């Protein structure tokens, strides 16, 4: 069977609800899905951050200090560390006045992947190319 492409579309802001965190954790779980699949079967995830979802990627979050929980930032960094493709909507970043240097990276963890800030049209192509869309 062919590879299955999944788009994890994160559109909710961090901390107001658990939703965006679950988007990251579900996407990260692709790392172990092969335990439940047959040889040759593969899940290819892409994380797309749109709308208020781009706010999840702001660096220097203080979730542990304020809420006593792991930050969404750390989930974002772990996503890069496990080589997830992460597309960030350029137009939505501009709408929130976010420059690229305000967003996280995972270089300190040794990640090779980086956030990809792209026009929404590029995200749309990924959505159209995916077998299933999962909205968070």
């Amino acid at each position, binding site marked *: 069977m062919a590879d299955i492409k999944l788009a994890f579309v994160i559109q909710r802001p961090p901390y107001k609800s658990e939703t965006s965190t*679950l988007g990251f954790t579900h996407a990260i779980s692709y790392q172990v*899905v092969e335990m*439940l699949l047959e040889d040759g079967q593969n*899940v290819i995830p892409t994380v797309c951050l749109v709308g208020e979802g781009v706010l999840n990627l702001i660096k220097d979050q203080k979730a542990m200090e304020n809420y006593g929980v792991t930050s969404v930032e750390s989930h974002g960094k772990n996503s890069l560390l496990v080589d997830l493709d992460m597309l960030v909507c350029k137009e939505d970043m501009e709408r929130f006045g976010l420059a690229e240097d305000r967003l996280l990276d995972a270089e300190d963890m040794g990640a090779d992947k980086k956030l990809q800030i792209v026009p929404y049209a590029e995200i749309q192509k990924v959505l159209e190319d995916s077998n299933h869309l999962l909205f968070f």
Partner: protein
Amino acid sequence: MGVLTLACFSSLVGSKSLDFTLKLAKTAADKGHTVNLWLSSNGTMIGKAHQKHLKDYSHAEKPVRELLEKGVQICECEACALARGIQKPEAIEGVQWNAMHWYLAKIYSSDRVLHVGGE
């Protein structure tokens, strides 16, 4: 017949999303489709046994048991359940406990996926 995988992240009480998901699962199963149901976040409260059916609140234990009898595979996120104080011995018998990769694996073999998000 097809394979339908549903996910629900909403709570049993305070939202009708979980009620909707259970009814959709039943309808699909009655039509002969294979149905998988993943419960995460507040949706995990569905798996707790001994729910009291107060008429002002949604009640899921009976429909969950009916779905299990129809062969619907129901699985809830273990970490989400434990974080909410739901222990495995309290769970409805037949409801599986696993992690998020269970959901992704079921999606792999599904014709359709309906992901009912949380709040």
